[in-house]
């Protein structure tokens, strides 16, 4: 910890060893900031990224010079697909604390890859375009665009959530659940993801559209196979072998009939 007045390193006493300023309150603020950082770190380790963001942002509100908190916040943003937010945090971290800062290395790795940066920017523009489509009521276009976004950046949690929301509106609860599972894989315990999942589960339990379960009073069965949804008649029997044999027998019978009536001549049609 450092003195807010002169910047000297503090010791265990309640006053600064250099300028003798009262540093009790400062020490408490820094302690709170460090505790919030520890909480954020613990949450990040178990993939509760939304919770980690809240703790780390609060930690920085107490002490903006908490380098570890700011760098971790950048990492969490990056993991959630919010790369520009991540870059912003690392740039700020590097400008506040230029020496011995891991943020320099993070920035160097990203900024050295222009192709990645360009792809990232395009993905962001597409996501923003998608939001515009949604607000204009062009949900079909939004779904098409958003599918491209999440295929390019599958860790973009809000992209997966928005796509799930669009599927929920179209009552495609199975597809929505798939997106939400992808989002939950990145960010567990995200409230929006949990809310949407609950909605999907309720509808799938009630036998909503695309439930994938057999319905006793319907004539079709719907299930997923990879990325496809298969709909087939409930009573479906595969009897192609039997039909092949029957076809052969019918063909043979027709052939014999042709032989009898066309090749074997009748007695009245003799050479005389």
């Amino acid at each position: 910890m450092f003195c807010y007045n002169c910047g000297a390193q503090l010791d265990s006493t309640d006053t600064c060893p250099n300028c003798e300023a009262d540093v009790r309150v400062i020490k408490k603020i820094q302690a709170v900031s460090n505790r919030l950082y520890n909480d954020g770190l613990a949450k990040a380790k178990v993939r509760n990224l939304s919770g980690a963001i809240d703790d780390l942002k609060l930690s920085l509100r107490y002490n903006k010079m908490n380098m570890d908190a700011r760098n971790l916040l950048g990492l969490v943003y990056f993991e959630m697909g919010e790369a520009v937010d991540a870059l912003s945090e690392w740039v700020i971290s590097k400008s506040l604390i230029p020496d011995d800062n891991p943020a320099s290395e993070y920035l160097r790795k990203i900024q050295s890859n222009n192709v990645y940066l360009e792809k990232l920017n395009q993905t962001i523009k597409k996501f923003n375009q998608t939001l515009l489509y949604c607000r204009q009521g062009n949900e079909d276009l939004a779904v098409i665009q958003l599918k491209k976004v999440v295929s390019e950046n599958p860790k973009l949690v809000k992209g997966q959530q928005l796509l799930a929301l669009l599927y929920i509106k179209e009552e495609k609860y199975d597809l929505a659940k798939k997106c939400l599972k992808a989002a939950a894989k990145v960010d567990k315990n995200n409230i929006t993801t949990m809310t949407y999942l609950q909605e999907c589960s309720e509808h799938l339990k009630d036998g909503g559209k695309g439930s994938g379960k057999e319905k006793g009073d319907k004539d079709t069965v719907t299930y997923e196979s990879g990325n496809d949804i298969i709909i087939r008649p409930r009573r479906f029997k595969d009897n192609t072998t039997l039909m092949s044999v029957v076809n052969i027998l019918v063909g043979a019978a027709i052939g014999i009939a042709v032989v009898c009536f066309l090749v074997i001549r009748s007695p009245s049609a003799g050479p005389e």
Partner: protein
Amino acid sequence: MIDFEEELKKYKPSMEIEEAEDAIYNRDMTDMMDILQEMMKESKK
């Protein structure tokens, strides 16, 4: 039951790379330490 329009309002556009510079410059970097220093300066006056 989820209200699509209400949920949609919660989604904000993501920041593009070109906007990052302005966002960083315009960010409010005040923290508790700054507030406390201000208070101490005011009390010394």
